[in-house]
């Protein structure tokens, strides 16, 4: 009993329940949901793996977003930064039809992630140093970022024919799992390491809860805020690699479109409050997977893509309600009232019998 209580009061409980409910729905209504098979070229294939693969860039974005939101900030530029990162990597590798790379791929990838960090640092300076409100500060890059990406690609969609580039979003020959899963695991491990072995988590929470008191305790608040935006930029840079590799092209207009909203939603579903303070990395990861599962489910049961947002909105409302403390209290009250009502009528019946 005590164990069960510990489980339900854990911060990850509700996000997990939401995800489990979705998975259960899938298992019942979607044929072969759990089915995983080996394709001819030695790859594992199945809906579960597909979900993990497709949610990878969202998971990575929401890692960065979690820290930003924990400082009571927000970063709405990550979608545009994904586009910039895509543009950088594709432009550097180049669209030569003979399949050769103009720049070594590793360098191109580093440059793309570096561009992401730079964008994040720009946001960080605006928010931390110049104290511009986070929404406004990151709005600048959100709107301008795609323009920057367009400039890099000269307004064209650059298609990359260099084969190894497709390994990022696909899989490295000889590997049974998509590369994205390894990238996600690496990023999550990196964050887990930072949380365990450094005090970044403590400082971020402290700044999110009470920046003034944090400063009085000697924390360099400006630096902490700067770092979280820079890290969010880094995550967006990595996501950009995945997104562009998936389509083997840089599409400045559509790469990472609206992903910032999904990332924020993932963080919220994971139980981190948008007002900042306590944050839950695990929750955000689960939130991101939940969102992708939802999308995949909708496609699987045959909902047209133009109706998808409506269904998604309804599901999100339900998920958010389940997690709302106020709603839980109302629900419990309603249940108690019903129970006491039942007890009463049963008692009356008993009296009648006598």
């Amino acid at each position, binding site marked *: 009993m005590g164990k069960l209580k510990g489980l339900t009061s854990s911060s990850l409980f509700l996000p997990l329940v939401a995800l489990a409910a979705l998975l259960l729905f899938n298992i019942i209504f979607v044929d072969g949901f759990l089915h995983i098979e080996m394709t001819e070229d030695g790859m594992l294939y199945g809906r579960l793996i597909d979900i993990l693969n497709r949610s990878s860039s969202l998971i990575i974005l929401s890692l960065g977003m979690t820290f930003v939101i924990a400082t009571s900030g927000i970063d709405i530029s990550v979608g545009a930064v994904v586009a910039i990162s895509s543009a950088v990597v594709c432009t550097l590798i180049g669209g030569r039809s003979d399949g050769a790379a103009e720049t070594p791929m590793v360098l191109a990838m580093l440059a793309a992630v570096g561009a992401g960090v730079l964008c994040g640092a720009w946001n960080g300076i605006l928010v931390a140093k110049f104290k511009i409100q986070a929404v406004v500060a990151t709005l600048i890059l959100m709107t301008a970022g795609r323009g920057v990406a367009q400039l890099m690609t000269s307004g064209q969609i650059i298609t990359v024919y260099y084969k190894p580039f497709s390994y990022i979003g696909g899989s490295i020959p000889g590997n049974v799992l998509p590369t994205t899963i390894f990238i996600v695991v690496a990023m999550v491990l990196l964050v887990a390491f930072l949380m365990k072995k450094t005090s*970044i988590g403590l400082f971020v929470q402290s700044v999110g809860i009470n920046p003034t*008191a944090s400063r*009085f305790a000697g924390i360099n608040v400006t630096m902490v805020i700067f770092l979280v935006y820079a890290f969010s930029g880094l995550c967006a840079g990595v996501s950009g690699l995945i997104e562009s590799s998936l389509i083997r092209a840089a599409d400045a207009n559509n790469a990472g479109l609206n992903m910032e909203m999904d990332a924020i939603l993932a963080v919220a579903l994971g139980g981190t409050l948008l007002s900042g303070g306590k944050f839950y990395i695990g929750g955000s990861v689960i939130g991101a997977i939940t969102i992708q599962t939802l999308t995949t489910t909708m496609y699987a049961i045959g909902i047209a893509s133009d109706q998808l947002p409506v269904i998604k909105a309804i599901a999100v409302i339900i998920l958010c309600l389940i997690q709302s403390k106020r709603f839980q209290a109302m629900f419990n009250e309603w249940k108690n009232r019903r129970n006491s009502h039942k007890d009463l009528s049963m008692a009356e019946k008993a009296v009648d019998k006598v």
Partner: protein
Amino acid sequence: MENVLLEMRQINKIFPGVRALSKIDFTLRNGEIHSLMGENGAGKSTLVKVLTGVYQRDGGAIKLEGKEISPHTPKEAQECGISTVYQEVNLCLNLTVAENIFIGREPKKHGFIDWKLINMRAEELLKKLNVDIDVTKTLDHYSVAIQQMIAIARAVDVSAKILILDEPTSSLDEQETQRLFKIIRQLKKQGMGIIFISHFLEQIYDLCDRVTVLRNGELVGTYDVAALPKVELIARMVGKDLSDVKDFGKKEEKSIPSEDVFLEADHIGCTGLLMNMDVKIHKGEVMGFAGLLGSGRTETAELLFGIYSITKGQILINGKKLNIKEPMAAMRKKIAFCPENRKLQGIIGDLSVRENIILAMQAKDGMFCHIPYKEQVRLADESIKLLNIKVSSREQLMKNLSGGNQQKVIIARWLVTNPDLLILDEPTRGIDVGTKNEIQKMAIHLAKEKGMAIVFISGEMDEMVRTCTKLVVLRDRKKVAEIENDDISSENVMRAIAGGDA
């Protein structure tokens, strides 16, 4: 009993793991000033919050004028006629004075807010309290004392039957307090029932008719103030024998400062904050900064700790000139600072006691030198024991602690960094007599045993006289006098503040 205004019977309130109130009875008559007394965490604030609908009671009944009420929100309580002014001023700094007074109940004309009327009525209202200020200016233009008056004006204007004042005088000086008392007595004459919570015994005896004493969430009793000697009141509050209590006021042997100067502030100042301050702080010295609110005492401390940078003069530490531009620079030189405004500048409410304690040390060590969990536990447990902090566990959230215990945690946060100079700005504000005494004794003890230099800042003259061996008196953002050893007495300090023979 005749003309009973409010009756609270058998009130219970349970928080997770804590029984905050247990079977409390409380009766308030018409035209009575009734004080609630008790140590930190005795349940005064909780009882008030149950009455005002901030918390829901878990048992018992509240009757107002014979009718049972159960306010669910402060607004509902207000509609019943119960108005409150809380310990920490709950007003919006970015709104104007008039807006603050009428927020949530703005008079309207043709469906729009009638600004003219609001400003006019606000002005009238404050005039009645002898406060003559521009009501169209935002609140942050005014001192905490004026803000307190505005909060009271607001509460009174909501045509209250019951006015609750939770530590209203903790940030007021003597004159302002008397002005406030005049208003309170005036309200009493109109038949209003007033619940007055304060840690100042003199004020209770000066103002109140009856007193209800709580201890550890339980009712000790209700007494007529005139028939209850002070010592006995204290004894009831702390639940100790009279003989123990008699030692309460007794002086601890003061610390004797050493010859070594730790910090020298050489004619420092900062535009808009401090004009001129000149002070030498020795090792093992307990020094006081005395003066009225806004005299520059807090500002000096903030300059020494690097919250702001000095624009003139220089600071020398151990004889070496130093540029203190941020708190970390001061911390590296082993300076620690417990700020005045606990809620805003001190606590990180949603973090645990353990995390709050190690925060400054961790900041000093840097982000990448994480203090191992075991070490954190050890530091936290040691501090909790050393300072006698009352917590249910070291993982309890800071915001759920009472004011005095929060203050102790902040002090613990700095003690674990092992400072050479500890600046305590109003460390005893809003704290009960027992804890106050503990903190004063601790200050002297640290100076004596560890040779720490202590700067003690307080608005309470008694406290300063009892603990300090040297007092620097400030007025109008300048140092005006220095009083040492045997010359330290309330009278001398008052005279210096008032500007007699400085």
